[in-house]
């Protein structure tokens, strides 16, 4: 039956030709190859997000008077609703985590170098979009923490000189965070961002397929010195089965987290109560949050907030363009990027931990 179906499709679509490149595709196999898996795991978690997101849409209602109640309904009345929401929330956090791991591993394995600049750029844009997913999705349950996180986050956008105010009003759908903001964020979260991310993932994967996996310079040097050490693995089925195994493990971790530590809902947002003490953004914004907290209110003649936000934006932009700062010539010139990467990793982790522990 299966063979018949395959033959029927093959006759019409010449599947063989389509599959051919994958049959010849190989993946370099060395002691650092395991880092290759993190991109795939991030993709897997994105697929989980799409599926559980669609499920949540069956019951979720955007709107200041209904959003919180509908999430409460999902968690308490709908069978397994708590599990679906929990998976969506946990997978979101894991996805941001694996995206960061993927970014840093690409950085340290120097996979962003020519000719893979565009893969890096699309990947960085994806990382920003994924954080946008986190930010917009965080508001949707319309609870107190989400309300204030959105207020602060959009207020920060408002600090940008010249265009900031307009940007804030665009994001909020008015001068304040209200039901109008929720409607917009809902639209961004379920329509705009998924569309953009899907297109960028397609580009990102196309580049990866087209160029093959990068070999870290250190390993490449070893292989040149000792050609018999060179190892490759067939993508299909060898590497793919390993990747699937990694997905399966990710699924297990995700399921366990969601089942044993269900995401809570907290209390409904009320625009006329004070922000609770100890309020903090989600962990993936903590390093920026802490940086902003440490900048004094006036630096020379510039507002501290403005300086911090411009600094963060500039750092993000430079990070996006990182591959273009590394020239082709071999030599010592390249060491600074590795140095910078180590500094960035230590800074992000350090500031996050500091932000977590600080009052």
């Amino acid at each position, binding site marked *: 039956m299966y063979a018949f179906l395959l033959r029927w499709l093959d006759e019409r679509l010449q599947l063989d030709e389509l599959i051919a490149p994958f049959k010849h595709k190989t993946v370099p196999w060395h002691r650092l190859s395991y880092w290759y898996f993190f991109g795939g795991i991030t993709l897997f978690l994105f697929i989980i997000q799409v599926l559980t997101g669609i*499920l949540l849409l*069956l*019951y979720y209602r955007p709107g200041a008077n209904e959003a919180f109640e509908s999430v409460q*309904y999902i968690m308490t*009345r*709908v*069978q*397994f*609703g708590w*599990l*679906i929401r929990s998976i969506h929330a946990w997978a979101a956090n894991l996805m941001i985590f694996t995206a960061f791991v993927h970014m840093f591993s690409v950085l340290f394995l120097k996979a962003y170098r020519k000719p893979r600049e565009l893969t890096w750029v699309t990947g960085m844009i994806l990382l920003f979009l994924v954080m946008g997913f986190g930010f917009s999705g965080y508001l949707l349950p319309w609870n107190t923490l989400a309300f204030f996180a959105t207020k602060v986050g959009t207020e920060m956008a408002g600090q940008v000189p010249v265009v900031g105010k307009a940007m804030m009003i665009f994001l909020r759908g008015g001068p304040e965070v209200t039901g109008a903001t929720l409607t917009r964020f809902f639209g961004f979260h379920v329509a705009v961002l998924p569309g953009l991310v899907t297109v960028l993932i397609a580009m990102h994967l196309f580049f990866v397929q087209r160029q093959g996996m990068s070999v870290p310079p250190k390993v490449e040097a070893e292989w040149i010195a000792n050609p018999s050490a060179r190892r490759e693995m067939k993508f299909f089925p060898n590497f793919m089965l390993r990747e699937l195994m990694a997905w*399966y493990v990710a*699924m297990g971790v995700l399921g366990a987290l969601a089942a044993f530590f269900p995401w809570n809902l907290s209390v409904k947002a009320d625009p006329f109560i004070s922000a609770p003490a100890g309020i903090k953004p989600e962990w993936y914004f903590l390093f920026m949050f802490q940086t902003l907290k440490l900048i004094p209110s006036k630096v020379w003649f510039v507002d501290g907030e403005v300086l911090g936000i411009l600094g963060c934006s500039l750092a993000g932009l430079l990070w996006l363009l990182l591959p273009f700062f590394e020239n082709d010539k071999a030599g010592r010139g390249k060491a600074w990027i590795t140095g910078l990467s180590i500094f960035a990793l230590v800074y992000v982790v350090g500031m996050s931990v500091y932000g977590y522990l600080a009052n």
Partner: protein
Amino acid sequence: MCADHVHDASRRRAIEIFLGGGLLASLASFLYPVLRYFVPPAVTDLGGDEVVAAKLGDLKPNSGKIFRFGSRPGLLILNSDGAYRALSATCTHLGCTVQYRPDLREIWCACHNGIYDLNGRNVSGPPPRPLTVFDVHQRGDEIVVSRKQEA
């Protein structure tokens, strides 16, 4: 050599069964919660068995009005001879809401031209079954509609 080969094949088969079974079991454990999730929780009908459909004098003779009976619509009709009638307003064909036609003195469904008489009998068009008839009482100046008691 040949025996080894058979042995290998049966081991391979056993591994395949365990792997395949494991995957199927995982898949089932993903699908089961999702299928259960699809089923919307039952809505408790707080409408009860009795409702005030109108006030005395709301309706002119030879007219009808839709009222709320629990979560579904009902149709209250005042005949030209001054008698009240109440029926389910959900057409038995495909669920549209029916209306009273003063010109025909019958109940009419606009969706597919189904016609019922004032006793709810489906007399013309596609409706397969009669409309459910409710009891009507007058209590003070209220017209009270209730489900017929099973006798």
